[in-house]
């Protein structure tokens, strides 16, 4: 341990290996069989259950919990996977506190919802750990579909299409499949290479060829895919990062939060990762929380999330905000970045306090400067390099309810497509629904 939390500047090895290992352990330990039964017993098996309605992938939650309660977690997993083939990851990363668990009637009754996320993980882990893949392919249709992007939307679409008997080729610009599951989620939410194992498990259905390191617009074009395939699904996510639009953001020590998160996820040796002593994260979403919490867990002495609006407007849920503060992160609300200070390397960030008047955010004129030797920008991502042929909507590819774009034979889903809320679970549902529509399109003439 060459350094400590007090080492100035950006440094690695601020904590011991033991501390790092502890800090990056599973955020929520998996339920033991007994715990799962106790948790499952609390479900009331509601009629037209609110949790199911709240789930973007419409998993039949009361049914799968009842299947756990009756000793058949395998059947429970099937119920989950039928709707959401990445149910294992969603069980780990879904903000259940703003989805299924928020509307659980036991949240209403006792302020303590049924632990739906953890139960889902229990069921899906049971099947995935057995190594078995519960789906088989329908008879080959002879149709070929290209999927661009091996993230949640693309993988979900590919699996459903392969199951229907189509031959699927999945392209991804990165060297590894998984998308944000692999590169964009805090390490403590997906331990033991879960994202990688999940992709391997998903591919067991067969009929899916994975082509990594191949990017749209570089290695192939939409036109070339249209020539070669019967249908195309675009799920390449958001490649660009919003600019800070504050003076001096090009100083060294200022980085994109998504890159930091990605680097951390791919690291085999956390002690070799560098982090500042005073870290400032600018933004208010899950990415900001993931970057801030992980900076703290790596050994940064002071970590502050600065968000330009108030607590209620923050994209990260109340639960995520509390997680951050519990880990020792300070959240500064109503602070808009004005200037990155420093002589070459960042030394601080000047913020102006804000207030909302008549629904409009405005500066109060009062400023505050936070000391910083590392600044992470987490103010949203943008779609870059969208094919010009496609109609756009609010900076994203315009799609119908089932993911059809303005061009016949091309579908899109996940973060790159319009609508949705940029959640893993939403992307999975969109990929699934687009696959169903593609299937109808491909088989319609048959």
């Amino acid at each position, binding site marked *: 341990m060459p350094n400590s939390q007090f080492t100035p500047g950006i440094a690695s090895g601020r904590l011991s290996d033991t501390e790092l290992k502890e800090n990056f352990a599973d955020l929520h330990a998996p339920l033991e069989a007994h715990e799962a039964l106790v948790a499952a017993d609390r479900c*009331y098996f*509601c*009629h037209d259950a*609110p949790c199911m309605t709240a789930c973007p992938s419409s998993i039949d939650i009361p049914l799968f919990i009842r299947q756990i309660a009756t000793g058949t977690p395998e059947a429970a997993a099937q119920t989950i996977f039928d709707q959401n083939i990445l149910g294992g990851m969603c069980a780990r990363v879904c903000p259940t506190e703003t989805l299924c668990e928020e509307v659980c009637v*036991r949240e*209403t*009754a006792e302020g303590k919802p049924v632990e739906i996320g953890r139960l889902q993980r229990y069921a899906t882990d049971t099947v995935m750990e057995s190594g078995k893949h519960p789906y088989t392919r329908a008879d080959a249709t002879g149709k070929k579909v290209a999927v661009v992007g091996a993230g949640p939307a693309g993988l979900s679409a590919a699996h459903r299409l392969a199951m229907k008997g189509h031959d699927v080729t999945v392209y991804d610009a990165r060297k590894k499949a998984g998308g944000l599951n692999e590169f964009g989620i805090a390490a403590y939410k997906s331990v033991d290479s879960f994202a990688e194992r999940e992709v391997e498990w998903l591919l067991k259905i067969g009929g899916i060829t994975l082509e990594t390191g191949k990017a749209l617009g570089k290695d192939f074009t939409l036109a070339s895919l249209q020539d070669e395939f019967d249908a195309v699904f675009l799920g390449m996510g958001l490649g660009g990062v919003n600019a800070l639009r504050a003076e001096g953001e090009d100083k060294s020590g200022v980085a994109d939060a998504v890159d930091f998160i990605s680097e951390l996820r791919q690291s085999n040796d956390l002690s070799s990762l560098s982090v500042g002593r005073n870290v400032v994260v600018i933004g208010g979403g899950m990415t900001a929380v993931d970057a801030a919490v992980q900076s703290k867990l790596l050994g940064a002495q002071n970590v502050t999330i600065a968000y330009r609006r108030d607590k209620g407007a923050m994209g990260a849920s109340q639960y995520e905000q509390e997680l951050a503060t519990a880990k020792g992160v300070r959240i500064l609300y109503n602070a808009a970045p004005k200037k990155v200070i420093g002589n070459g390397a960042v030394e601080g960030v000047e913020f102006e306090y804000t207030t909302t008047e008549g629904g409009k955010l405005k500066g109060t004129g009062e400023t505050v400067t936070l000391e910083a030797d590392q600044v992470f920008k987490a103010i949203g991502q943008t779609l870059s390099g969208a094919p010009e042929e496609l109609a756009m909507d609010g900076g994203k590819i315009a799609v119908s309810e089932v993911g059809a774009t303005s061009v016949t034979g091309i579908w899109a889903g996940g973060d790159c497509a319009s609508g949705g809320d940029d959640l893993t679970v939403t992307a999975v549902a969109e990929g699934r629904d687009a696959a169903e529509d593609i299937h109808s399109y491909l088989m319609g003439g048959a």
Partner: protein
Amino acid sequence: MADLTSTFVGIKSPNPFWLASAPPTDKEYNVRRAFEAGWGGVVWKTLGSEGPPVVNVNGPRYGAIFGADRRLLGLNNIELITDRPLQTNLREIKAVKRDYPDRAVVVSLMVPCEEDAWKAILPVVEETGADGVELNFGCPHGMAERGMGSAVGQVPEYIEMVTRWCKQNTRMPVIVKLTPNITDIRKPAEAAKRGGADAVSLINTINSITSVDLDAMSPEPMIDGKGTHGGYCGPAVKPIAMNMVAEIARNAETADVPISGIGGITTWRDAAEFMALGAGNVQVCTAAMTYGFKVVQEMISGLSQWMDEKGYESTADFVGKATPNVTDWQYLNLNHVTKAVINQDDCIKCGRCYAACEDTSHQAILMSEDRVFTVDDSECVACNLCVNVCPVENCITMKTLEKGEVDERTGEKVGDYSNWTEHPNNPAVVAAE
């Protein structure tokens, strides 16, 4: 402070809570612990005749069913009567009674259906100083195959005969324990009375198979791949037991026979319910076997608090108070009209009432787009199913319509008391001229 002391067939105890004849009362060690915990009395586990004791299986003796969170709801057993030598039990009974003179010690007995067998055992029990005997005519497993237990209890003539032998051969009070494995519980109770019994106690356990091992294809508890029916007890049997107690209490032939109530009593409230139906005291087993002897302390404090709240000074003040309200269906007031009412503030919107009513009943609960559940009085027959499936206590209640109010379902005004015996649809009704 309410007086919990109880006198049952002349036997005094500081409270009406006795431990039933069962494994918890098989040994001095257990019974001493029970008395230290506060139990008012025990019925010592059933003794057999002098000679080599019975043997028990050496595999599992119990099977169970569970509710949510593995709460034990029903227990069954295939254990026989005491498997310890008679003299050991007699010595221990004597020692315990000597040290706890204020507690009730009743001894359960089961010997062959011959007068000599009963004549032999009664004096040696009397010699221990025990307060009374309970005749075990109830155990449905094992001993019944040998012509004892429920094999006697199912034949009223045998009950009468054995009870008479006992009354003729001891000065101790004789309590006859009844088996529920019979179609009409009043018959054995009447037989016991004819034989001179001082009281009846009920219920003994119910023939049962609690579960099946689907790998071994054997009932549980499983002994080397086989199982046999066992005696079922615990909270699950309480409704069956209470009905039997009430049937005896309201039967003109047996109304004056004291009853010791048994069957799934777990809390003070259970005990109060049995006693309200006519039980002079209660006996408990499964609750103690599930939670230990300490449960009696909640029973004592709870019963005492409730009696204070109600102004009952002694248990005699409320014993049998509910008995007159147990009636036949034909006397129920058909003009008593109620409607379900859902308290929207308490409703957690689970929709179980809706599913139950819509799928299995009368389509009388309406569900709005935003999950507000309301009752349609024009369809509600007041069946109470919604109340029973609602997870929030008192969220759904039954509102009684006043006389003269219109029942929206029938369009008729609520009238005076009228029952089936007077109803025009009853073919047995002879029109008054």
